[in-house]
């Protein structure tokens, strides 16, 4: 193979790799999820006040479906608290939607302070999570939304601050 052919091969493969990387990379691949129902949803918070997810439009949102009977959900709460503390002033808003009762959530929050709003959805909130892309109905389920309320990334299973941060940083830019 001549040097020119080798160079052409190399550039071709590099181009394919770059395209594959771009389209398959989770940082750039946007999920096809209709967030209309989620943004229109109104649920009571821990103070009993009804809040609509859409009222936070304009911020980068991390909506986290969780429950107190779900150990991986509880494991990620401190990670979300850290992220909210670090980036809250940069227009990040984390919102917890508890697929659980107010009593259980209050009890958990007494020993694990949460610095973002938690909306009480009870068991019915699992259907809302399904509408928002949680096809199998497992928890925890987290969806990152841009300032216009479009889904940027879906996460099934527990998260760490380090896993979530690149997606949030990109959305905040």
């Amino acid at each position, binding site marked *: 193979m001549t040097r020119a052919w080798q160079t052409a091969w*190399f550039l071709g493969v590099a181009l394919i790799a770059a395209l594959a990387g771009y389209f398959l990379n989770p940082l750039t691949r946007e999920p096809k999820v209709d967030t209309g129902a989620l943004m229109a949803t109104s649920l009571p918070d821990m103070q009993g006040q009804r809040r609509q997810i859409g009222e936070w439009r304009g911020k980068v949102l991390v909506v986290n479906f969780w429950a107190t009977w779900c150990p991986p959900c509880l494991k990620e709460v401190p990670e979300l608290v850290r992220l909210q503390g670090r980036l809250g002033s940069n227009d990040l808003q984390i919102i917890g939607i508890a697929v659980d009762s107010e009593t259980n959530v209050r009890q958990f929050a007494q020993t694990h302070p949460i610095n973002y709003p938690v909306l009480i959805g009870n*068991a019915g909130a699992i259907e809302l999570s399904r509408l928002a892309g949680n096809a199998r*109905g497992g928890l925890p389920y987290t969806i990152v939304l841009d300032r216009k309320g479009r889904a940027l990334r879906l996460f099934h299973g527990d998260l760490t601050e380090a896993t979530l941060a690149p997606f949030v940083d990109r959305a905040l830019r």
Partner: protein
Amino acid sequence: MRVRIAVFLSTLCVLAAAVGARAEQALLEPDEAFRISARLVSEDLLEVSYRIADGYYLYKDRFSFKVENNRVRLGPVEFPEAEWHSDEFFGRSEIYRRQVTIRIPLETPPGRLGFKLVAVSQGCADVGVCYLPATHRVQLAAAGRPLELPQQ
């Protein structure tokens, strides 16, 4: 040589991305992960079985059973030996993997019309996902032939 390295690296990238995408899709629906069946072994004994998919488990202390028929009364539930599972919030919990059969004595016989069993269970997947407690209603005929109804 450079071409081979590039091909190798790009293949790795594509495979890694594909594996990541598959992992999300591979999660089972709760009814696929935990399949319930129930049968009357005799006039005074009921058996409830769950077939549990690989990589999934059910918590022993989250089962509950009742009947939708006032005439039938359930006795104390007999669980088989479970295995231990640890997590930082609930500590050590007893769980079942693969398959579990739970025996429930009937303190009053079901009669000719049979009865409806309401079974609640809750489980998780090893990948770090848990499912909402599931309620199943199973119609048990006196002849011992179960008719499974959709989950509620």
